[in-house]
């Protein structure tokens, strides 16, 4: 299965991400061991120059990883045609369950890399590198995830063969599947919809409050809310947004939203949710470092961008989620 063009692209992409991250990590170790901001030695100057290299390496790795996550979803969806019993990406992932772990590592990287990029941006702009040690410690924590992603992806693609009979989304996303997905599906829309609506209102209100007041407590609230919003958003997609798009009360598979038949609506839907959540996550977690004098002003300036971006992205997510509910043909009682 390795000789599929999409698979080759993914393996090349992940291989390069690992190479870039390892190069960054090696420099990171040197920086962590020899960093002395009070020194004006040649060694310190060389280390400061190398921080630029690391920032470019990781930025490129992030962009490749974002592209890789989208390409992975489309490739596993494209591969389903080769398996008996598969109808979308779910079937391809079930053909070798390691695929679900690949999806998890890709999600982890897409969610965590932007935090590093934001931290790095602040650090470089500050001029006196106030969070350089924290930044490189975080980089060393991210590198194993990139490595795991590459290894798992290789294992996944090596392990799937066209003669595997797999199970389709109809069995995984059904009430009787006996898995977490089955529990989510069995939640009635009468419960999940009000939860989603309430969470959305609270989240947007908290974002607006933070943007206007900049109160430290509001930043903490927004940061703690964001993982919850991500979870509720994903449950809403499985529970009723997908159903409304398919106009089929029994069909809950989120992966069909990424197919041409549904105008690839899954991509903007999930991307806007992820952008909103990641941007909202940042203000609160930077509170501990915001006290450092050189960073305070920079963080205040960046927060405005993050919060505005989060509000815009979440509004877009709500628009995509509400569209089929408002303009679709499926009666609400059937959801």
């Amino acid at each position, binding site marked *: 299965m390795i*000789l*599929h*063009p*999409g698979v*080759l692209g993914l393996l090349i992409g992940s291989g390069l991400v690992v190479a870039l991250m390892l190069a960054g990590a090696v420099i990171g170790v040197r920086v962590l061991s020899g960093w002395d901001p009070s020194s004006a030695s040649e060694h310190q100057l060389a280390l400061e120059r190398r921080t630029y290299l690391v920032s470019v390496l990781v930025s490129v790795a992030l962009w490749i990883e974002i592209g890789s996550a*989208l390409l992975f979803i489309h490739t596993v969806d*494209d591969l389903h045609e080769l398996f008996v019993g598969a109808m979308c990406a779910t079937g391809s992932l079930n053909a070798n369950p390691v695929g679900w772990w690949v999806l998890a590592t890709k999600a982890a990287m897409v969610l965590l890399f932007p935090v590093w990029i934001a931290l790095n941006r602040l650090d470089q702009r500050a001029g006196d590198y106030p969070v350089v040690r924290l930044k490189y410690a975080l980089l060393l924590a991210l590198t194993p995830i990139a490595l795991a992603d590459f290894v798992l992806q290789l294992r996944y693609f090596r392990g799937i063969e066209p003669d595997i009979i797999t199970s389709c989304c109809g069995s995984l996303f059904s009430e009787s599947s006996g898995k977490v997905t089955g529990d989510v599906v069995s939640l009635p829309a009468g419960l999940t919809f009000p939860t989603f609506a309430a969470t959305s209102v609270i989240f947007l209100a908290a974002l607006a409050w933070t943007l206007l007041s900049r109160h430290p407590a509001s930043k903490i609230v927004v940061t703690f809310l964001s993982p919850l919003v991500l979870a509720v958003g994903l449950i809403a997609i499985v529970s009723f947004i997908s159903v409304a798009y398919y106009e089929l009360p029994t069909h809950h598979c989120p992966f069909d939203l990424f197919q041409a038949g549904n105008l690839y609506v899954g991509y903007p839907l999930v991307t806007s949710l992820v952008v909103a959540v990641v941007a909202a996550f940042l203000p609160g977690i930077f509170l501990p470092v915001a006290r450092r004098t050189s960073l305070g002003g920079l963080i205040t300036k960046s927060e405005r961008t993050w919060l505005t971006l989060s509000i815009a992205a979440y509004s877009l997510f709500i628009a995509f989620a509400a569209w089929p509910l408002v303009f679709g043909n499926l009666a609400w009682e059937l959801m």
Partner: protein
Amino acid sequence: MRRHLKILDFALASLQRRPFKNWAIIAVYAFTVAVVASVLFLTQSIRREAAQLFVGAPELTVQRMVGGRHVPIDIGVGETIAAFPSVVGVEPRFWGYTYDAVTESTITIMGAGPGMATIDLVEGRLPTRPTESAIGAGVAAMWGAEVGGEVILVDAATTGVLYEVVGTFESPSDILTNDLVVMTAEEAALFLGLPEGKATDLAVRVANDNEIDTIAAKVKRAFPDSRPITRSEVLRTYDAVFHWRSGMMLAVFSGGLIAFVILAWDKATGLSAEERREIGILKAVGWDTGDVLELKMWEGVVISSTSLILGLITAMVHVFVLGAPLLTPMLRGWSVLFPELHPTPHVDPYLLFAIGFLTVVPYVAATVAPSWKAAVTDPDEVVRG
């Protein structure tokens, strides 16, 4: 925003100052994109053509196997299968190959049946008498025959048989009919030397698509020496084969891709004295390392997008206008009477994404370190020489 646009403007001016070096990179880069894109466009087109052709194919084909080989099947088996619920019809098919020593080509012989209705005739009709035949465009061109003319074919008993041409097939069905000669079912059985009461295989029509696999299992249970082949199996095999072939070609081409990446690395590393001086002056007048890195990034974006567009246009012309003359011999197998390929222009955004991943991503990764090296150049060191 204005700052970024100014840096982009500077990047464009900087690229124009070294036209030879940059056009050399773009030429190699665009060629790399064109090769990758041609392979992917062509395989996708063939897969699409195959999928469209199989829309009219029987849901199930039943063959008989002896010693692992495909042998003629009893027509009587069809009557038993026809009695299965959900089976709406079973049709014995008579087909095979004959080698024509004069033109050194293999011709496909087929008996006319109801399935033929899906193939369009350019002129004339299907044969109704044993002495008549309808021929594909390739056979017609080879023999110089047209409706009203004659063809001579060598049958199973190595006797030359004369057939009157009563119809020729349309070119859109080339992929099916190029090397085809159709005669009446009885005449085809006789010509191919099939024993009395035997057919090459049985085409089974199933009313409900969901029941195809069940019918196939029932056929296998009732006739253990049979091999039922479902339409979706054939399509899946085609998909797998063409994915594999395109991947194989890309793997063969990976040497070229690595050479391109090394070239990109080399060109990005080998800064001329003039370029180093330029960066040195920029830093002396106040640009910081981040600005120079952005300048290098914009240069990369301009080179990559120009090459990508040029490469994709080249690949589209090669595949969709010229019919991929450089790739078809490797992708479609071996034969004398090849159908002419006219792939329907269709570009999937997914393919563009995959092409980007196979070409742009390695280029960007290869130029990261050299860009940084250029960006951290010490102005003092460069300006003093």
